[in-house]
């Protein structure tokens, strides 16, 4: 399997814009490198502040890198601008954490799902409608959902709409940034099942970012553990879980509750 994404020596710091030179501009992402194979679910796990969300934002180009390369399907996307950037946005998409703020509260579901087509000028009017209805069906919604507003939906329903909106232009690569962290356990299960179903149906590759080790181990094929901006261990999920090498990974695993129940 070839690599769909290669990260090489990625660095990103945030400094405060003071009048005086600030010495401690800490590196949020400190020289990290890894590869993601096409079709796999790659997990990025770590505690808050470790840089995993920043990494996701760098790959989706919500933030610009300080140095390093992001190579997508063989091309470095770091310097992309204008039309090329917009083109790339069709292929690399993102799902966010908070279902209550990830949809525009003033627009109905139909508008939200139609927008990607309008932005990228895809398909004819009839085709657009058909594609939207197809996507709704995969999520288990019927046509009446098109006129609903986000405030009328539950957290799980909103998250499914957010996922659909990300997939309208049929991307290859989807970054899920804590996509289930704000959901109840039973709703989380729904969304994880839904994401797996979509992966099979649309041939997606996921970068799954989370702080929840149970979810990461369950979903992912390979996992990278981050701490303070660095990747400290990468391995296949089972191997990492059963035989962690780095002491930090070991301590993270030891801290997961639920030993008694299982």
């Amino acid at each position, binding site marked *: 399997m070839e690599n769909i994404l290669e990260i090489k020596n990625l660095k990103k710091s945030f400094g405060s814009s003071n009048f005086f030179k600030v010495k401690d501009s800490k590196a949020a992402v400190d020289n990290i490198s890894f590869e993601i194979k096409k079709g796999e679910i790659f997990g990025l796990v770590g505690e808050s502040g470790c840089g995993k969300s920043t990494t996701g934002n760098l790959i989706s180009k919500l933030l610009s890198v300080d140095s390093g390369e992001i190579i997508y399907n063989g091309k470095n996307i770091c310097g992309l601008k204008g039309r090329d950037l917009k083109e790339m946005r*069709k292929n690399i998409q*993102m799902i966010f954490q908070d279902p209550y703020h990830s949809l525009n509260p003033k627009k109905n579901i139909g508008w939200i799902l139609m927008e990607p087509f309008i*932005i990228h000028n895809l398909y004819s009017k009839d085709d657009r409608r058909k594609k939207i209805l197809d996507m709704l069906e995969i999520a288990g919604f019927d046509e009446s959902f098109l006129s609903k507003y986000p405030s009328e939906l539950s957290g799980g329903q909103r998250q499914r709409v957010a996922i659909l909106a990300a997939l309208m232009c049929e991307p290859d690569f989807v970054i899920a940034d804590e996509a289930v962290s704000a959901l109840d356990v039973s709703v989380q299960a729904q969304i994880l099942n839904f994401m797996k179903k979509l992966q099979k149906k649309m041939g997606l590759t996921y970068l799954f970012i989370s702080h929840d080790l149970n979810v990461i181990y369950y979903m992912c094929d390979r996992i990278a553990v981050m701490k303070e901006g660095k990747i400290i261990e990468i391995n296949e999920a089972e191997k990492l879980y059963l035989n962690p090498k780095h002491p930090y990974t070991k301590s993270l695993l030891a801290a997961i509750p639920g030993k008694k129940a299982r």
Partner: protein
Amino acid sequence: MNKKIKDYNFIIGGGILIFLLLVMGVSFFYLPHSVTEINTGVKLSPPSSSYLLGTDNFGRDILSRLMKGSQTAFLVGIISVSIGCSIGVFLGAVSGYFGGRIDEIIMRIIDAMMAFPGILFALMFISVFGVGIENTMIAIGIMSIPTFARITRSGFLREKELEYIKAARVRGASNFRIIYHHILPNVISPIIVAATMSFSSAILAEAALSYLGLGVQAPNPSWGRMLSESQMYFMIAPWYTLAPGTMISLTVLALNMLGDFLRGYQRRQGKI
């Protein structure tokens, strides 16, 4: 208890406003007497069956002038709020959305504008560009730009960080699309409240300027001018002063009550 007050705001404010709008509406089609015809024989006569609110010092029917004046008041309100709103919202949006140096520059200009007392600015503007209703409207409009700019900017600063904006950016939306389709609809509520309040300030400002002789010029009727002209006759013909004074007060009261209601309504909406 609070809810009752909010309801009264809506009922009373709305009621007065509807009444005023009706008066203005009627004035386009029917006025009891001519607004400009001078009739010294009946000057300063008290309210009677033919002159329902009496006459002024030129014998003109006060009611007719009052009704025509409502057109002026609303015209000034609409035009000046439009000027202030369109320019203010644009500046606030650009400032809030792009941040950085653009934000700094625009906000310093806005700060400078706010440091100037509004009426003083209007006086300066009119002394440079001349008197009359057009310049009055422009001057008052410019005065209200900072309010709209700041409200819009704070709304943008708040919404900009939310996830649906990040999602729009990741989907490939252009800056314009994000500003216009995503952020603006979500910040419009406080702008509408500001517009209501600005409307009432505009009417007051026009009254003040016309009172000073700088706004609407004779013989066109304006409530402010009528106040000014009636001043010296107050002791002998109080109805002449009371009429435009009451109209100004009622209009401003109604608009402020509605503005309060809207603000309370939004606050309840926001809390849910």
